[in-house]
């Protein structure tokens, strides 16, 4: 036993040494602007710019040009489709996440998620001709003709959970439509009649109930939401595809099992990966699994339907492959077997006809007009795979310009997005930390009994200086959190070698904070936020009575990131928690991360104090008027 401990200690020390070696450049990136992280983000954009990180693609109407948005590079690259030769590299905003092409092909619109802008590119000049302001983290875009009289650009916004409808000529916003939480991806039906919008975080629901998501269906001409296709027990919904005849739709997503203890990884008891098919051909909406009994195909992201509706292609971002479904076999299976199928891992054998290995972290996929070529954007090795759909083989690979050498950070990112370490490749870090953030779910992580020690998933942004980790503060640093703890309790299959762990830890701790969207331009606070700040820092209550230091907001949530890095009992413990002591969570971008408290029992920031603080143990707040509580909440969102 002692020997095992000594070995573990030596291993940890070695990992720590490697981590520190890797951390040096990371720490340099971290910058001084720890509150907002904007300096960090800028530095990161410069440092990582050499990696293209292709994410999404669009073809010109004649099919000769391929437009590729490159996330970390902040670029739109224009390629010759036949050869893969880069014709032009056009700088756009930070973290571009979505693009749309006008029907004539004269304009490309790029949604820059971290800049809150839309870059408008003239495709004859191959240059940005306008940059439109947007708000709410624009993530997906679609061009629609004749929306209430003139052309419009629909933009899905991840933070504001809505779809903005912009005038396609001027960028002027006409309206915003309520979408699902974390609205991100848009698909226009081939006949332009309907727009399908998906979202990456589940819609708000009752505590410890199955996650609920939706496909928001918009009448593209009227600019109105006409349907919300429910996706039960689903969270993390990515792309949608609609067949040319409009009779078949397919949307890919995760099927998390977050209500049961993570005691059995096998048989899909942590994550399922599935596709929901819908439309007239299906006669409703039916979820079918992509996984197999002993092998999983993690993080389905992109989806395309063949022009003749014979095949559905799905990129599996965590498993580095493309899944091919035979549509006629799928329909036969659906119509001849009793539903539901979502939990039946044997089902996929009836309709999955191929798994095509591609590059690392395949994301956006695109079919040529004739359906004979499938292009796949491999985000984490900067390539585009071209698949011959007749043979289901990669026939060529376009390598996007960039460095040949991988930094430790890049290797760490590859590890983060890979599902290969989990039992039977079921899931990876990015399953719960979608796009390196969070998933909006609460989990029963430990195999300690049903409903015991429920924990809310926390945001991974600018983590340096927020240690320890876990809600019980049990993990002193990232190497333990990501290494021993994850390998032992979560993956249960394969451990990281020391270098992989060091790379992963360096990547995780170096994830920058996205810009805070609640501050005024320039970072200033509104009047309400300033009043809230005064409440946060106050030492007397509304009646002039001194507030004990341990009962002030600023005591536990001290420091630039809003954490004292200590644990406290603030009266929020439940009988099902092993301890009432909880690590003080950082406040960075807290406006994004509902639900709140250690177990996610507070649906909103307000509920932390209106429901879960009856005795003022979680700060002195019961003296506050409703106005003052609103001010406090507005301030907290600016952290």
């Amino acid at each position: 036993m002692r020997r095992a401990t000594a070995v573990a200690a030596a291993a940890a020390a070695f990992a720590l040494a490697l981590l520190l070696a890797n951390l040096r450049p990371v720490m340099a990136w971290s910058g001084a602007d720890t509150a907002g992280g904007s300096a960090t983000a800028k530095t990161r954009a410069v440092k990582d710019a050499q990696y293209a990180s292709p994410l999404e693609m669009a073809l010109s109407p004649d099919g000769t040009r391929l437009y590729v948005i490159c996330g970390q590079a902040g670029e739109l690259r224009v390629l010759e489709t036949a050869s893969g030769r880069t014709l032009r590299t056009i700088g756009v905003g930070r973290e571009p996440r979505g693009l749309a092409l006008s029907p004539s092909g004269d304009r490309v619109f790029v949604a820059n998620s971290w800049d809150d802008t839309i870059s408008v590119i003239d495709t004859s000049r191959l240059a940005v001709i306008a940059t439109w302001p947007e708000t709410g983290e624009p993530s997906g875009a679609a061009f629609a003709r004749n929306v209430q009289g003139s052309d419009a650009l629909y933009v899905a916004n991840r933070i504001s959970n809505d779809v903005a409808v912009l005038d396609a000529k001027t960028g002027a916003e006409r309206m915003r439509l309520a979408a699902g939480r974390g609205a991100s991806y848009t698909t226009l039906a081939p006949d332009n009649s309907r727009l399908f919008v998906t979202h990456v975080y589940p819609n708000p629901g009752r505590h410890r109930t199955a996650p609920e998501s939706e496909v928001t269906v918009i009448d593209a001409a009227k600019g109105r939401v006409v349907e919300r296709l429910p996706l039960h027990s689903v969270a993390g919904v990515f792309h949608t595809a609609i067949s040319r005849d409009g009779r078949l739709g397919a949307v890919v997503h995760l099927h998390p099992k977050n209500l049961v203890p993570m005691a059995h990884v096998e048989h899909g008891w942590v994550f399922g990966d599935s596709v929901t098919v819908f439309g007239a051909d299906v006669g409703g909406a039916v979820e079918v699994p992509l996984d197999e009994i002993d092998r999983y195909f993690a993080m389905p992201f992109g989806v395309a339907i063949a022009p003749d509706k014979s095949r559905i292609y799905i990129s599996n971002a965590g498993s580095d492959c493309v899944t091919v479904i035979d549509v006629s076999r799928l329909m036969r299976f659906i119509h001849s077997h009793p539903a539901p199928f979502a939990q039946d891992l044997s089902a996929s054998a009836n309709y999955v006809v191929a798994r095509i290995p591609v590059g690392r972290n395949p994301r956006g996929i695109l079919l040529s007009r004739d359906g004979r070529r499938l292009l796949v954007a491999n985000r984490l090795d900067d390539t585009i795979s071209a698949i011959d759909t007749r043979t289901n083989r990669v026939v060529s690979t376009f390598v996007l310009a960039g460095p040949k050498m991988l930094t430790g950070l890049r290797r760490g990112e590859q590890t983060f997005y890979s599902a290969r370490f989990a039992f039977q490749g079921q899931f990876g870090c990015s399953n719960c930390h979608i796009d390196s953030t969070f998933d909006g779910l609460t989990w029963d992580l430990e195999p300690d009994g049903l409903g015991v020690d429920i924990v809310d998933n926390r945001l991974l942004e600018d983590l340096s200086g927020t240690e320890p980790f876990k809600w019980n503060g049990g993990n002193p640093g990232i190497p333990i959190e990501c290494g021993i703890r994850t390998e032992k309790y979560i993956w249960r299959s394969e451990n990281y070698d020391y270098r992989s762990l060091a790379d992963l830890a360096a990547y995780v701790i170096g994830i920058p904070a996205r810009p805070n969207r609640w501050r005024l331009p320039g970072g200033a606070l509104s009047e309400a936020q300033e009043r809230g700040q005064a409440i946060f820092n106050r030492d007397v209550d509304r009646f002039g009575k001194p507030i004990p230091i341990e009962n002030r907001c600023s005591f536990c949530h001290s420091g630039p990131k809003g954490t004292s890095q200590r644990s406290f009992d603030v009266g929020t413990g439940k009988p099902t928690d092993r301890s009432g002591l909880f690590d003080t969570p950082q406040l960075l971008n807290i406006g994004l991360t509902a639900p709140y408290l250690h177990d996610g029992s507070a649906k909103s920031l307000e509920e932390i104090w209106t429901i879960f603080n009856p005795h003022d143990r979680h700060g002195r707040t019961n003296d506050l008027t409703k106005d003052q509580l609103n001010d406090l909440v507005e301030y907290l969102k600016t952290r």
Partner: protein
Amino acid sequence: MKRLITAWLLFAGAWAAAQTFAQAPSMPRFRFQNFTTADGLPDNHVFAVLVDGERVWAGTENGLGLYENHRWRTFSAQDGLAHRAVLSLALDPRTGDVWAGTMGGLSRISAGRIDSYTQLNSGLSNNIVYGVSVEGEDVWVATAAGGCRLNLRTGAWSLYNERNTPMTEIWTYGVSATPTKVYYAVWGSGVLEFDQNTHVWDKYDDPDGENELVLFRDQGLIHEIVTSVSYVDGILWVATYFGDSRYDGRYWHNFLTKDSGLPSNFTNFIKGVDATHAWFCTDKGLAYFDGVNWAVYRPSLADGRPEMTVRDGAGKATAILVTTAPAHNYILGIDFQGPDIWVATAKGLSHGIRQP
């Protein structure tokens, strides 16, 4: 001789009646189709009605009803509605979303999905939501603890009460928001005005305080207990339980039973059509004012028979022969569907189908 006299009397009566009808101003006539729980309406106590194209929403004491394709559908608390008692309704004309003020919070109904905001889970000032109005990206709310505004773009709530407005009582009962002005009807504190350009609040009070007498003709606001406001075409229409008013920004004109066609001074709801036309929802029937003449629609207070009365500008009242009336004389709300009207009453929802 006796027969001759009788015939003459009949002729004279018919002639007099014909003369009367001929002289009555032409006012809109309706055939009322009344809906109750027997037809699928969630409850007969209908607090509010909202028309959105071919769809009609009814806020009732026991759920939100949606009438579409000749069928009723009910949204309840089980569907996510903040509370079963729906007091007020508003349409976001840009998105088609419906906002419902309830006894337990504020709900947005968007293509079947309901998102609810309460005083516990959001910045909403109070769960009793008497009024709601949507203007641009703002949802203006009248609650039992002041007014508030939800900005749909930022998600920020702004509260308006005695601490930051001239409001002396915080029981807000109705709100009417437009691009230029927002008006609150405040129970016991007159009318509150917010200028959208200057962000300055102003207040209109009863010049004789809380006295229930109207001392002077067109004196200003009739009473501090204001139940409803409607701002349209630069004209503010105001309802109280003691009479109603029209305010053009400079002059007030009062409407009382003694000198107008109002069937009662007790008005629950008011809705201006434009600068000169308005509908008054009172406890003794539904009234329409065309700028000169009045018409009242109701079941008779004496025997329940349908009646319509027209009062011309000179004060001459004429009974119009009708065969239908709103479901009840206690009227709580109205909305328009082209030439038709939909009327919320204490005993059902009425569809007034315009007659030629």
